[in-house]
């Protein structure tokens, strides 16, 4: 079998028998080296890649250290993505142009896309540029441009997405790619995360007092915080039987993932939320607590994260917790934001392949809240079979992935999800009020709406109205409700934040404003304020994004067998620009069985959807067209096929029909 004999197309199987997914290639660009070998040897040797920042002034910051990559080549997210993807494909023994283009896709995660370009555009605006210029200059740096650029480079036309769930974004991308292959929508996905170190982020974490002045020392007595970093990891995910048939090296099988939303606080981690993500992962992957041999910790080194993560592991694993090795690589590579969980997934794959656990560096024992086995003596030969990799983000958005050594699951019964689910739409809301903040205030008079910008206000009002339309009260049923939101910030908070940073330095930025400039702020504030605990997932504004969000929601509900998700898009036109009609267009999707069990009114059934990439850039309509299609389908005259051409060149086709049986 040659390396590139990839069968063209594959038969889509029912949702009750998901296909298995292998990791067959790793690409890493990090502050401890380029390529998986340098990365892995640095982790095992505890050789830190943290150094004095050179790319921006550090005056007024708690630390001068960061995981900054000193070259060669530009410090640019696109350059890192292309480099890591090429490494990963070469590592997998694949030639991208020889792969069936329509079956090969890209899923990436990031917090900020190309922040250096965004900062430059914001600086010109502060110095007198026009609002329209700001948008035009910042536009090419928007996160959604990155997976599109990679797919164009590789000539791939399969699913294409950028997920922006902050510091768990890499894990969200891996989970998305896993679902695409498991459910037969792609055979191969390049998936990972990327972020570039920048003054904006560093100053924000600094202002939250989350940056360590000296070293990052996860789980240690007296630990002071995290050290910001940058990098990129891309993993090649491939349908398992195909990987085996071509004799590929299989680093790991992805067993699945679990998710949750704290729905409590925008920045502080929550024990209950983290524990629910771990429990959800075990349940959805059919794992027993006794199956887990190692946990790759989120382990940022902040007092709150490490205490909360430890307590959650203790709660979920009980008496077994002290016997499960847990380690954090962030003391060595720093916290690379949207790339962090992708780097950690790569490390987890290498741990499974080599049988060696990477240690937690800089460890000082004695913290009474950190009582686990943190692998502090150095690399440990442990031969793990099943590994969990944790990712927790601002907005209380948690996603844990489970990986196993190749072959581990062969001996176990194939896991079935039961009969294929059917999905129905039970709530709709279109919000285009010219003053969404006032509307949100009217709808949520008891909630803290500080630093709620227009996209956030649209999301909040729209989610609440869609849930009301579906007959769901988040105050009572929030445990079973989540959100998947495609959103694009209007840059107003970002501009104000940047002005403070330029004029007053890092001490001038407002602590509460920092989480509000993240791309996942609209979904996160909605989840926190409405108490949505099932899922908090953000997609980079792709116009339309409602269709991608709907597809993600159906995949999630398939795996989780229940619950309801608010899905759709939100968009607020930046000052001085025009575009699609602004506002929120949201719908509530749930399983047919779930809707029936509560006698919900059903607008339409989601019969199916297709997605491909490769149209010209520049599409984009408001997500309200999806709502129009749902309404047309609900009239029952004929099934409706809704087609939407996205901003970056994606095309989604959603088939909707009245639900009559």
């Amino acid at each position, binding site marked *: 079998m040659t390396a590139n004999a990839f069968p063209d197309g594959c038969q889509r199987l029912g949702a009750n028998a998901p296909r298995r997914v292998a990791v067959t290639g790793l690409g890493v660009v990090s502050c401890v080296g380029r390529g998986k070998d340098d990365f892995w040897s640095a982790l095992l040797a505890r050789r830190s890649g943290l150094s004095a920042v050179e790319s921006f002034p550090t005056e007024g910051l*708690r630390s001068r250290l960061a995981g900054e990559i000193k070259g060669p080549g530009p410090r640019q997210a696109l350059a890192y993505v292309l480099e890591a993807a090429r490494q990963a494909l070469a590592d997998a023994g694949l030639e991208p142009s020889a792969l069936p283009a329509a079956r090969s896709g890209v899923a990436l995660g990031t917090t900020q896309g190309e922040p250096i370009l965004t900062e430059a555009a914001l600086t010109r605006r502060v110095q007198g540029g026009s609002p329209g210029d700001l948008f035009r200059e910042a536009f090419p740096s928007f996160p959604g441009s990155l997976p599109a650029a990679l797919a164009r480079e590789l000539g791939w036309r399969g699913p294409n997405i950028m997920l922006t769930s902050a510091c768990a974004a890499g894990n969200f991308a891996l989970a998305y790619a896993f679902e695409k292959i498991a459910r037969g929508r792609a055979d191969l996905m390049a998936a990972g995360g990327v972020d570039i170190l920048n003054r904006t982020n560093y100053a924000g974490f600094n*202002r*939250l*007092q989350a940056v360590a002045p000296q070293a990052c020392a996860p789980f240690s007595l007296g630990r002071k915080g995290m050290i910001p970093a940058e990098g990129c990891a891309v993993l090649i995910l491939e349908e398992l039987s195909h990987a085996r048939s071509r004799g590929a090296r299989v680093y790991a099988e992805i067993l699945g993932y679990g998710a949750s939303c704290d729905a409590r*606080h*925008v*920045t*502080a981690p929550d024990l209950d939320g983290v524990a629910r993500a771990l429990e959800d992962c075990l349940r959805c992957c059919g794992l027993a607590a006794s199956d887990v041999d190692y946990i790759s910790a989120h382990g940022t080194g902040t007092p709150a994260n490490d205490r909360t993560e430890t307590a959650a592991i203790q709660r979920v694993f009980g008496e077994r917790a002290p016997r499960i090795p847990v380690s954090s690589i962030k003391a060595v590579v720093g916290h690379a934001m949207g790339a962090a969980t992708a780097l950690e997934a790569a490390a987890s794959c290498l741990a499974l392949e080599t049988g060696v656990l990477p240690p937690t560096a800089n460890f000082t024992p004695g913290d009474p809240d950190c009582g686990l086995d943190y692998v502090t003596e150095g690399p440990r030969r442990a031969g793990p079979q099943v590994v969990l990799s944790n990712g927790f983000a601002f907005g209380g958005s948690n996603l844990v992935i489970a990986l196993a050594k190749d072959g581990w699951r062969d001996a176990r019964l194939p896991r079935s999800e039961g009969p294929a689910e059917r999905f129905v739409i039970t709530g709709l809301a279109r919000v285009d009020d010219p003053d969404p903040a006032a509307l949100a205030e009217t709808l949520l*008079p*008891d*909630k*803290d*709406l*500080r630093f709620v910008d227009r996209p956030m206000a649209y999301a909040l009002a729209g989610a609440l109205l869609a849930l009301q339309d579906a007959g769901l009260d988040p105050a009572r049923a929030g445990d079973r409700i989540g959100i998947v939101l495609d959103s694009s910030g209007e840059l107003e908070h970002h501009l104000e934040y940047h002005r403070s940073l330029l004029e007053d330095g890092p*001490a*001038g930025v*407002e*602590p*509460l404003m920092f989480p509000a400039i993240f791309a996942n702020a609209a979904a996160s504030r909605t989840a926190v304020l409405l108490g949505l605990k099932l899922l908090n997932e953000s997609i980079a504004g792709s116009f339309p994004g409602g269709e991608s969000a709907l597809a993600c929601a159906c995949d999630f509900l398939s795996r989780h067998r229940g619950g309801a998700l608010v899905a759709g898009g939100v968009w607020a036109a930046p000052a001085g620009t025009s575009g699609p009609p602004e506002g929120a267009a949201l719908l509530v999707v749930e399983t047919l069985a779930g809707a029936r069990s509560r006698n919900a009114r059903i607008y339409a059934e989601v019969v199916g959807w297709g997605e491909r990439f490769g149209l010209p850039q520049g599409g984009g309509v408001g997500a309200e067209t999806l709502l129009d299609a749902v309404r047309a389908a609900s009239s029952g005259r004929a099934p409706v096929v809704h087609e939407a051409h996205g901003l970056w060149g994606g095309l989604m086709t959603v088939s909707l029909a009245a639900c009559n049986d």
Partner: protein
Amino acid sequence: MAPEHPEPQEISRIVREVIFDALQKKKSRFKLEDIKEGVSLTRDLGIDSLDILQMTAVCEKRFKLRIPDDENQNLDELGSIVKVLAKHWPKT
């Protein structure tokens, strides 16, 4: 503008206003008179540590001073915030 030689009562009055403003924006039921010496902002008034960082940031901007990070921690009472502000009052 920050007064050049403020009395502690004057600082206290303004800090209470800053705290009360945050409570109002948080839609809290607490009143101005609930903010008094010996009351814990976190335990008694439901203010979290991020809110407190935001309040001290507002005070820093209002008074044009800077509280070092190591002193901007565990500030949980009106009196402790007033004390650290007075200590770092700009010398004009």
